[in-house]
């Protein structure tokens, strides 16, 4: 198996981008990443794109071919383009499949991208589309919503471990503080714990400010064999681990409602593959689709003991200058969550940090970073470890 490097990145502006279509936003990301890498179209061997639900959001399937076409890679070059889907982990999965392709030796230059166009339909229709990531027949039909499922995780976490609404709110406060410094973030406003607690209740105990927003956006990274990465860039970032794990589709079938076992397992597999431990990680982008999800993620990945994530967050340990900076991009909460793009955006953020290009969000001396992307209420988890050093 060959070592793989990321040689180019681009994330588009995240937000409610009514003036931009899916095909235009993903083209912008792809072209940007190619320019960043100095790669020509002729060099591309394959495109892998993560997209959760073009069918439901814009009534468009066959997203791979559409993207190849609008990127000018279909009519003459006939570059193969494959769409992968694992709900909100589709982007992470696209990165993982791209790494497989390059590591295997089958392809050299691969574009791993992610895109979602969510605001062409009403927010309630978008919520219904997202609910398809849970069990439609045995959760959705009972009136379950995504905030509802994570609210049930939060309720039990509070009951078992004494986690408080204030501690949940602190996740959103910290992520908004980070998002202020991220030019592509959907929100550039700081919020307070009181703002979160005073915002409307969506699914008790989660307020609207405990929830990530509905977002349009795309991101792309260019993958290459590590041996030729320096031909393209002075600052390649190396893939030290890629891992993925599954769990039950329905939350009610989990061994422990407050633990995302797929995250635990994907995390362990990644650390094993990279021969690293949580203490070696300088920063991590986790899947904070809801504030409770970030608390579970830092526990389940092993950065803090189970049940102590709330207190750990409240003490400031996950801030940019904390023990383990979490979601320097602003996370899903403040940067936005175009579901298929999120996993790729997370990797792009880590690359920017490891290159030392993250401006006011920069984690000093960052050498090793991690990404954690979740599908549904935890049925899929995808984890990557990236490093400046091969």
């Amino acid at each position, binding site marked *: 198996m060959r070592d793989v490097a990321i040689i180019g990145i681009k994330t588009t502006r995240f937000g409610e981008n009514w003036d931009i279509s899916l095909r235009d936003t993903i083209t912008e990301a792809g072209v940007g990443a190619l320019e960043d890498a100095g790669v020509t179209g002729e060099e591309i061997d394959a495109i892998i794109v993560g997209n959760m639900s073009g069918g439901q959001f814009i009534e468009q399937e066959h997203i791979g071919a559409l993207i190849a076409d609008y990127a000018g890679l279909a009519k003459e070059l006939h570059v193969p383009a494959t769409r992968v889907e694992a709900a909100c982990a589709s982007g992470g999965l696209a990165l993982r499949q791209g790494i497989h392709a390059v590591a295997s030796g089958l392809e050299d230059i691969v574009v791993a991208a992610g895109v979602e166009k969510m605001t062409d339909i009403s927010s*309630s*229709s978008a*919520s*219904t589309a997202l*609910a398809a990531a849970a*069990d*439609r*027949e*045995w*959760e*959705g*039909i*009972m*009136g*379950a*919503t995504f*905030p*509802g499922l994570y*609210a*049930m*995780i939060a*309720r*039990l976490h509070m*009951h078992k471990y004494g986690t408080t609404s204030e501690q949940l709110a602190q996740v959103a406060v910290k992520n908004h503080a980070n998002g202020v410094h991220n030019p592509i973030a959907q929100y550039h406003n700081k919020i307070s714990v009181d703002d979160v607690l005073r915002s*409307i*209740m*969506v*699914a*008790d*105990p*989660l307020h609207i400010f405990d929830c990530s927003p509905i977002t349009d956006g795309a991101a792309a990274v260019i993958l290459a064999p590590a041996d030729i990465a320096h031909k393209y860039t002075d600052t390649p970032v190396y893939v030290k681990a890629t891992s993925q794990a599954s769990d039950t589709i*329905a*939350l*009610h*079938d989990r061994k422990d*409602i407050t633990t995302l076992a797929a995250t635990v397992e994907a995390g362990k597999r990644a650390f094993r593959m990279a021969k690293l431990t949580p203490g070696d990680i300088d920063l991590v982008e986790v899947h904070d689709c809801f504030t409770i999800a970030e608390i579970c993620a830092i526990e389940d990945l092993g950065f803090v003991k189970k049940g102590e994530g709330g207190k750990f967050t409240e003490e400031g340990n996950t801030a940019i200058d904390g023990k383990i900076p979490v979601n320097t991009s602003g996370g899903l909460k403040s940067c936005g969550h175009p579901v298929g793009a999120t996993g790729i955006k997370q990797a792009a953020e880590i690359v920017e940090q490891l290159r030392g290009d993250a401006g006011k969000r920069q984690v000093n001396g960052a050498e090793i970073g991690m990404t954690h992307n979740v599908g549904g209420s935890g049925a899929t988890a995808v984890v990557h470890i990236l490093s400046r050093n091969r």
Partner: protein
Amino acid sequence: MSVPRFWRKQVARYNLIGTHCTNCKTYYYPPRSMCPKCRRDGKTENYKFSGRGEVLTYTVIHTAAEGFEKQTPYVLGIVKLEEGPSLTSQIIADPGTMKIGMKVRPVFRKLGESGEKGMIYYGTKFVPE
């Protein structure tokens, strides 16, 4: 949800019928065609649950799923049945009285409908004992 998709599991939804694996003695609800523990070695048969159970966790939904707007606020919970498996259902109770660990029993109720002229879905919800 389309008529055939609902109809296929209608009996299981109406009567809380799930699966029992006679090989590993584990009970499953919702029903499964293959025992996830024994996989190909499993032997599954239908099993009607008593429906008695306790609330493992719950939420009060204020922003409803599409089609549930008129029901807000409603309580959604995960109920652990006495035979072992857990399921997601609505709990018909004053949100203020909800507690983790409270005992519940099943009731036959309307779940929703496919628009004004579509089919009405019925199934099992829960009430405090």
